[in-house]
């Protein structure tokens, strides 16, 4: 039984008896136990994360590992000890789902998983629709069986529910409850058998850093030199990171829960857990039976954050440090809701509230964990903001990253390096955590934007964009126009060629103006704000060799060339795709998307030679970028420059500095939208002027400002250009992605061996694009997929490749030039045939779709005449 439900005693003065407390004055039997003088790895924090990490490190052959915790064992007092311990595997995030599934596998192997089933109930129509999305995500990530239940079917499984309040439920029979403390203990014991040193009641006093690398951990049981130190301290992690001058950007938050019991109905329960867990999604609550009791938890109350320094010490806590005093007033409305939903149990006067806490958990600015080496301090790793459901999976993944440099599950969305400095401030984290908290069980649209702490990074074009009625979306803190209301007149101009969306969900965070901007770009020209790019230079005598090693493609090219290249992981998967400009013999400029720019920067910096012969200089905040594309782009640019911008004078994939009106501008002739044009880079303080020059020069040519809706979706999709984080992930290789053109360069590069092997093999899956043949739903409404939907056979069977990966929509969006809705997906080779008739599932219905490309040939302008015109 978990400590969370160990509410058999009153929360009185000695309710913490089971866990015990240390005494700083010493007197404990092993108080004289000193830590080893030096270790390869020190893991700080013995919750589910630290224990599983330690276990997997030793399993993978790591030696000299010490696990320490300030608290006693087996429950050191962190969030593991009071966690609610239930697991719902289905999540819209693929990465989170994979971590959860791996964790469930481990919990089952450890014998601490009780399969209970779980039902997410719906009280209204939008939620019912959301549950069909859950069905789709379950199918996309391969979680089966799952089903939609009507209220009577829910009642059959949960006979004490007031089924009149609900419209239906999403049932996952594989949901379960784990004993996370027991799991942590077993893993620690297994690790100890392999030589793990364990030291409880050991407080970290300092983490010493020398020359940018972690050097030693100072504790109440002596100092230990360490090559690598992992902070797995849950809500305390920011405090520990600060000791090393690093940052683990999370905030502790409070989640309320109570245990009530004993309920007469449960007295007869034969199993510890006999009824499915109920998630009452629309009220941000859950109820679950365990033994004779019912646990009621809530995310419905006001967001309550605290600082890591505010968490009490073990000794000061009445229960444990992460079980804070319950604030009854916050929970009163939830009691009313639970009473209404489960009157037989909750309304029983003989059933008492036996335990009630404000439990502390860790929340980040974007809801994802913080995994990996910190960018600030070499050898200092973070394993934080991880909940029970993903704990062992995260532990295994991090261990693989530490030992092998690559993990089975690609955790790029959890990489701690992703976080920009502007996202690390306490105020920002708190604002986003509070906003995210209320969405914990919310219906979150895939394009939904944050409302809090906006306008943090503004490009020099911002004022112009705002005047044009830009609808701003945020990336990496940057405000980027997604479309411009000023382009509304284009809707009339293009009339029927612009597809409208009838369903509110499909049209949310979207505008038909995007498609109109796209058509205007294809007809005339568009200017696009790309200032959110992360830009960094690698320079120095060793730069060429370093960049050769980092990039898959040949970068030993003449100065002035632009190379589009994947960066591979050691196992030949995608770490990123980006462009590199050779600006000088020893100067290479990397330009990559803003979203993972910081992760990329760390990846590149980590692979520079140790001798300092190549250096990385971050230029992100020095340069703004304005994209200029369309058939009139050359006319526009030539009207403000004396430079030769003819196709011969400035061929494709070249870059050079030219004078544009009075400005000096770095122009790079490439395109992610498949049209003639340039990326124009100017010093950020000259950006506003650049905008004005191009806008003025473009006016006679009918230039329009276009948003990221064009750049990131419609423009690239009809050209079938892949995007990192969608089509390109570490789990897929270059051959599967259809990007293995040309021959493999002679120079060595990261992932080369794997890449050569992949070229010799039949791919397990092939990147394809499909178009939807009929959008009409059963109710006659035209529906438009948004991404992550399962691709299935016409009769609904999932497509699974020989590596067990399912086919799902990696990107979806309009191809306005084609008048079609386009879907990208990896398909097993037998289905990756142009003309193959398949289907896509969306909101509980199946729509026919046909494969239109199965290699890098674009659906629009297959000969690429435009970019090379």
């Amino acid at each position: 039984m978990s400590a969370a439900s160990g509410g058999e005693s009153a929360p009185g003065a000695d309710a913490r008896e089971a866990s015990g407390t240390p005494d700083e004055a010493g007197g404990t039997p092993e108080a004289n136990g000193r830590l080893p003088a030096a270790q390869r790895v020190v893991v700080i924090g013995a919750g589910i994360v630290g224990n599983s990490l330690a276990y997997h490190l030793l399993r993978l052959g790591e030696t000299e590992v010490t696990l320490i915790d300030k608290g006693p064992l087996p429950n050191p007092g962190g969030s593991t000890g009071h966690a609610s311990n239930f697991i719902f595997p289905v999540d819209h995030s693929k990465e989170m789902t994979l971590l959860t599934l791996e964790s469930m596998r481990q919990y089952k192997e450890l014998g601490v998983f009780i399969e209970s089933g779980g039902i997410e109930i719906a009280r209204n129509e939008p939620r019912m629709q959301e549950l069909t999305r859950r069905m789709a995500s379950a199918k996309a990530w391969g979680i089966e069986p799952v089903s939609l239940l009507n209220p009577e079917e829910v009642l059959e499984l949960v006979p004490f529910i007031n089924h009149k309040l609900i419209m239906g439920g999403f049932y996952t029979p594989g949901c379960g409850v784990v004993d996370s403390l027991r799991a942590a203990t077993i893993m620690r014991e297994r690790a100890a058998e392999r030589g793990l040193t364990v030291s409880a009641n050991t407080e970290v006093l300092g983490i010493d850093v020398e020359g940018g690398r972690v050097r030693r951990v100072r504790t109440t049981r002596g100092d230990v030199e360490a090559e690598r130190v992992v902070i797995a301290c849950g809500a305390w992690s920011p405090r520990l990171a600060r000791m090393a001058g690093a940052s683990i950007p999370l905030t502790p938050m409070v989640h309320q829960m109570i245990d009530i019991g004993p309920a007469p109905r449960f007295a007869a329960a034969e199993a510890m857990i006999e009824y499915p867990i109920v998630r009452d999604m629309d009220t941000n609550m859950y109820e679950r039976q365990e033994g004779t009791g019912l646990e009621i938890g809530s995310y419905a109350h006001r967001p309550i954050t605290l600082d890591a320094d505010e968490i009490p010490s073990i000794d000061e806590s009445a229960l444990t440090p992460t079980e804070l005093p319950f604030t009854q007033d916050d929970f009163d409305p939830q009691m009313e809701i639970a009473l209404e939903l489960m009157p037989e149990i909750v309304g029983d006067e003989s059933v008492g509230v036996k335990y009630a806490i404000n439990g502390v958990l860790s929340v980040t600015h974007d809801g994802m964990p913080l995994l990996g080496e910190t960018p600030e301090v070499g050898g200092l790793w973070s394993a934080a903001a991880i909940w029970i459901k993903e704990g062992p999976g995260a532990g295994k993944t991090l261990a693989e990253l530490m030992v092998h440099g690559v993990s089975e599950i690609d955790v790029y969305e959890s990489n701690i390096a992703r976080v920009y400095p502007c996202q690390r401030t306490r105020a920002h984290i708190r604002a986003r955590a509070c906003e995210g908290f209320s969405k914990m069980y919310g219906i979150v649209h895939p394009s939904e934007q944050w409302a809090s702490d906006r306008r943090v990074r503004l490009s020099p074009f911002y004022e112009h964009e705002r005047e044009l009625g830009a609808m701003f979306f945020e990336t990496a803190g940057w405000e980027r126009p997604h479309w411009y209301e000023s382009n509304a007149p284009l809707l009339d101009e293009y009339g029927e060629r612009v597809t409208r969306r009838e369903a509110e969900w499909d049209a949310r965070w979207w505008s038909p103006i995007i498609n109109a901007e796209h058509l205007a770009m294809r007809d005339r020209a568009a200017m696009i704000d790309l200032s959110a790019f992360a830009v960094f230079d690698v320079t120095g005598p060793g730069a060429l060799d370093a960049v050769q090693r980092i990039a898959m493609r040949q970068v030993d090219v003449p100065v002035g060339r632009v190379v589009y290249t994947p960066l591979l992981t050691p196992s030949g998967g995608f770490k990123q795709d980006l462009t590199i400009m050779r600006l000088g013999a020893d100067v290479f400029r990397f330009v990559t998307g803003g979203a993972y720019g910081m992760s990329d920067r760390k990846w590149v910096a980590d692979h520079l030679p140790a001798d300092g012969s190549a250096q990385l200089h971050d230029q992100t905040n020095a340069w703004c970028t304005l994209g200029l594309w369309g058939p009139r782009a050359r006319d526009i640019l030539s009207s403000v420059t004396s430079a030769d911008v003819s196709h011969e004078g400035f061929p494709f994939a070249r870059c050079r500095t030219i004078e544009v009106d009075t400005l000096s501008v770095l122009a790079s002739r490439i395109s992610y939208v498949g049209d003639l044009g340039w990326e124009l880079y100017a010093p950020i303080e000259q950006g506003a002027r650049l905008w004005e020059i191009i806008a003025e020069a473009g006016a006679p040519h009918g230039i329009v400002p276009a948003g990221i809706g064009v750049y990131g979706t419609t423009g690239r999709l009809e050209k079938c250009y892949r995007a990192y984080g969608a089509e390109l992930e570490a789990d897929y290789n270059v051959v599967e992605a259809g990007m293995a053109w040309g021959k493999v360069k002679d120079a060595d590069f990261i992932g080369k061996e794997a890449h050569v092997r992949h070229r010799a093999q039949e791919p397990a899956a092939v990147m394809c694009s499909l178009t939807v043949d009929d959008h009409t739903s059963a109710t006659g409404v035209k529906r438009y997929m948004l991404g992550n939907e399962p691709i299935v056979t016409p009769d609904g069977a999932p497509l699974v490749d020989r590596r067990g990966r399912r086919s799902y929509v990696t990107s979806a969006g309009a191809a306005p030039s084609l008048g079609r809705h386009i879907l990208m997906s990896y398909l097993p080779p037998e289905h990756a045939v142009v003309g193959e008739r398949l289907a896509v599932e969306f909101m509980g219905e199946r729509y026919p779709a046909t494969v239109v490309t199965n290699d890098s040939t674009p659906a629009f302008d297959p000969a690429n005449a435009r970019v090379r015109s």
Partner: protein
Amino acid sequence: MKILVAVKRVPLTGGKIVLTEDERAISTRHLGFTISPHEECAAEEAVRLVEQHGGSSTVLTLGPPEAAEQLRDMMAIGIDGGSHLVTSGEEWDPQATAAAIAEAVRSEPEPYDLLLFGNESADAANYQVAIRVAYALGLPSVTGVKGVAVADGRVRCEQEVAGGRDVYELPLPAVVTVKEGLNLPRYPSVPGRLRAKRKPIETRTPARPEPRLEMVRLKLPPSSGNRVEVLGHGPEAAPAVVDVLQGLGVI
């Protein structure tokens, strides 16, 4: 019958007590609040007596505005109403406390039949407030009770003493202080919690007289500096344990 239960809000302390800067209070930054287990039993007894004999129960506290939480807690297990003597959070000495309580009781239009207190408060443990209230009101009192029965206008009280129980019988109205063990207090039900929100709390703000038992500062007792001797791990330690027991002459 009409019953009053007096309770005191105290922090729910952990294994280690931390004092405020001025050393006049426990730092409660991380702590929740509760009442003494004795007082929980008093409240439970009041609820049971009203269940048996009819009437009503009131829970009274003298404390800061936040002490309303403790009144609600007791109303959640079935106490009917609350009476809050609101202070600014300063410590009140037992004489002042008793005087304020007596004044509140006196001003009640319909007198109480039984006034229940905890034997001593969890924090200050002055052992005297109830007795002073009894004197102020001219009522009989008995302390440290672990058995209460009401019949025919009298309350029969049992007190645990060495070797057995002493029995007292008091005419009502009377003042009785009780000890934990009198009963096993119930947990509040969810409906009880929700009802408690709607029950009335009467407030008054008595003036605080100069203390005659004047707290100057709090301090932590010196630690024992004790060193433990590990006799062994698991069942193998048994012979060593027996040696110790023989050494102490208890075998």
